[in-house]
């Protein structure tokens, strides 16, 4: 396991070095490997195609620029997701009138759980989750990050991440169950 991690880190360092040396195929390799995770994260976090595509482009082009300037990171995936997260938060901040996004996050984490589900799919169900819980779950399920990586990306303790993912799953399950019940009743 540790060997795999160190091998991955070495390989990623080599890729970054190649980008710095002007090798565009290295960037293509990274892009191909991570585009799906980043795109899904942006899409599910923002819930909006246009905004997700904007963020997606910003993330990869920003990464390329930093990589050419000698970027060094422990995990490219975590770096990309962190960049995407920051960009998404900026979008949300712009979108909403709330001045303090963190205050909003804390509020959303516990209160903002809608149970008036109608005919929904998974993305709609995700939209009904509290934002912070949704973010943790999306990072876990779509980006495939570990608890530690999510904690690193979001700057929170691992235990908090664990709790948020658990709550998100629980709430998502309840939404799905409610939806099933409604369908049966109707």
């Amino acid at each position: 396991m540790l060997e795999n991690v160190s091998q991955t880190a070495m390989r990623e360092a080599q890729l970054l070095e190649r980008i710095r040396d002007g090798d565009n195929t290295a960037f293509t390799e990274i892009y191909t490997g991570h585009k799906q995770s980043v795109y899904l994260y942006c899409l599910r976090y923002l819930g909006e195609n246009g905004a997700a595509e904007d963020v997606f482009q910003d993330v990869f082009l920003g990464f390329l620029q930093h990589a050419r300037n000698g970027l060094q990171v422990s995990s490219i995936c975590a770096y990309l997701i962190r960049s995407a997260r920051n960009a998404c938060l900026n979008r949300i901040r712009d979108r909403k009138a709330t001045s303090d996004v963190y205050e909003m996050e804390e509020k959303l984490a516990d209160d903002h759980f809608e149970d008036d589900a109608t005919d929904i799919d998974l993305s709609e169900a995700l939209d009904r989750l509290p934002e912070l819980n949704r973010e943790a779950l999306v990072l876990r399920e779509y980006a495939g990050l570990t608890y530690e990586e999510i904690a690193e990306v979001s700057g929170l303790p691992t235990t908090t991440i664990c709790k948020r993912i658990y709550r998100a799953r629980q709430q998502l399950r309840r939404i799905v169950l409610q939806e099933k019940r409604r369908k049966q009743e109707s």
Partner: protein
Amino acid sequence: MNFEERISAFMDGALSPGEETEFLHILSVSPDKRALFHSYLDQRAAFIADARSTTVPSHLDMAVLGAAGVLGAGTAAAAASGSATGGSVAGGSVAGGSVAGKAGTGAAGMAAGAATSGTTGAGSMSGVTAASWWTMGRMLSALLLGVALFSGGYVLNDLLTPAQGTHAHDIELVATPVEENRITDASTEAVSPFNGVETNSGPVVANDTGTEEKMQEAATPHVVYRNVYITQIDTVYLPGERTTSAHETRAIKRIDTVVIAAALPPRIDRPINIVEQPRSSVSPRSSGRFEVELQREHLSTWPYIDYGRLGVDRTQQQFAVSLGYLFDERHSAGIIAGEKSFAMEYYRVENDSLFLFQRQPALFYGGGFYRYAQPLFSGVTPEVTLTLGGCDFGPVLGARLALRFDPLDRISLLIGANGTILAYRYRDKLFTSHSLGLSYGMRYRF
């Protein structure tokens, strides 16, 4: 941590091995919790399906790679067409876990999540069943071991036992030329069609000039037949007999047995000496078809139990009495009964907590046994005994590998190793215990 938190942590591989074991046990005994767990697995399956159905739009690929300078104007069209399949390509690359080393994290990447999530779900459920069937697997292994030992005995029997026909003798045939003393290759080759025939011919010599007697003697073929079974002695024609000092030799003019006749050159009509040598066989056992044996066991080992903590009675009665019937020198079977200790460790789950119980009772058991003995040399005989029986708790399967010493005609002493497995149920779960010990005993034939 409540159970749903545990499910979440289990799905993400965040439980410690101990917690995971406990979690699986709880799942195995609680249908409600299994259903809850399945609902979360369904949720993950939905994520996987969603991830698979969502791909990066091709124009995004174009935009990013174009801005990065990877795509030139000439390759843009090709990239655009390639990007139509970009989703599957990307999915494949992520599924391979080639990037960021997330292959081991369970749901790393969407497509990788698809693969690993399926694995996680299946793995977890198979883990539940594996916990239940592991004990059965051990029993099956023991049974297979017994069968293998039994089969091995027969193989050893074939390897070690000299040829046996209706006559328990090796027969050495010596052909003595009379009319001709010139033995050609043809006569030697004539024996080659036989299986198991060895030729121990003397040198092939042409007797054209001088020293006829010596050459005749030297040219005498000495063909030794082994593993030749003469099943009908009346087909051998015996015109006369003479006796040598070492062996009883019967000279004959001709042998009508097809097998032996084919060994001779057809044009040579010469007498053949058949020398019968007593075979150095294992001396037959003494008379008596029944055996009674008293055996004990010491230095036994069991699964570890913390006696000091439990303060339980560590009973260690290990004895058995058996009565067997000898079918022949090697095979016997009979009944056995005795008392044996087993370390028992089982658990139950109450209110999501695991309770562990340990004890070591002495159990009375009874059953049947089959024994195979392989005589090697006089006085010492290895044997393997397979026992199948039962006790109050469940079935007992045992195997003993022992050496038998026969100092007296009817009395044997035995020493060896005895292994036993007990399977027992507790609240619809199957557990096993086992023991391995030094076994010794005394047997009397009558």
